[in-house]
């Protein structure tokens, strides 16, 4: 049941990403190209997604628990620190270079384009590297991903 639902929810997300243009690096990069071929479409993706989630979370989160899990798993971290800002800054640079973000690239897997696989392989290598680096830097302290 959980597996089938997760799959269907993934289909909705993937269709939304593709429809919105988030799986198309040319469109994503143009969103950031204010000085050139600016395409504001992604602003509308964010507006639509944020609007629905804001209202939907307002209805769902006050409930005692999710329908198919014992509790809501919400990030416990609230720290605004160098890790957050530095990590986000690096992410933005990578996003501006490649034109893919993680949520844009996963649905693009279904397009069977080698560029997507190359990006995702590099991204996962980066995640493994970050985990190793993080373990070395902070012996036992909070790991990334909460």
């Amino acid at each position: 049941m959980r597996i089938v639902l997760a799959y269907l929810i993934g289909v909705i997300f993937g269709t939304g990403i593709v429809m919105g243009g988030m799986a198309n690096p040319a469109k994503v990069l143009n969103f950031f190209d204010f000085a050139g071929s600016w395409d504001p479409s992604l602003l509308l993706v964010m507006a639509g997604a944020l609007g629905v989630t804001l209202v939907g979370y307002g209805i769902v989160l006050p409930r005692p628990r999710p329908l198919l899990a014992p509790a809501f798993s919400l990030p416990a971290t609230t720290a605004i620190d160098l890790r957050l800002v530095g990590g986000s800054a690096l992410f933005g640079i990578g996003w501006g270079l490649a034109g893919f973000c993680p949520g844009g690239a996963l649905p693009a897997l279904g397009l069977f384009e080698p560029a997507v696989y190359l990006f995702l392989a590099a991204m996962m290598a980066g995640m493994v590297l970050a985990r190793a680096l993080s373990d070395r830097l902070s012996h036992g302290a909070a790991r990334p991903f909460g």
Partner: protein
Amino acid sequence: METAFTPLQSFSGGLLIGLSAVLLMAFLGRIMGATGIVAGLIFPASLSDWAWRAALVAGMATGPLVWLAVTGRWPEMQVPVDPGTLIIGGVLVGIGVSFGGGCTSGHGICGLARLSPRSLVAVLTFMATAALTVYMVRHGAGR
């Protein structure tokens, strides 16, 4: 390379993304964050935890096929960068979202919807560096 402004289609896509985030929270109690979902696939906590994440990603990858079935054509995708840039960008994205604890979906949609100050800082930061990077690559010195 010019791309067409698609306000209605992009807004509708956004509505679907939002719907999926709300449903994932309502049923499984999870944040719809691509970073966390992939991290849980690479570093599995348990088989059942791995399974719903794999199913979710499989569903995501079905998105283009749904689009093909409905509209009769593949979704548009142009990659205006060379493979080397894709690899460097990919590694930076992987490291960045790990330390930053999220990406466009986790911080940008779910975090902002929870009114998290941490997510707001993350979003403003990665939007700014992405725009700056595109500016440097396309309009920087020597271009």
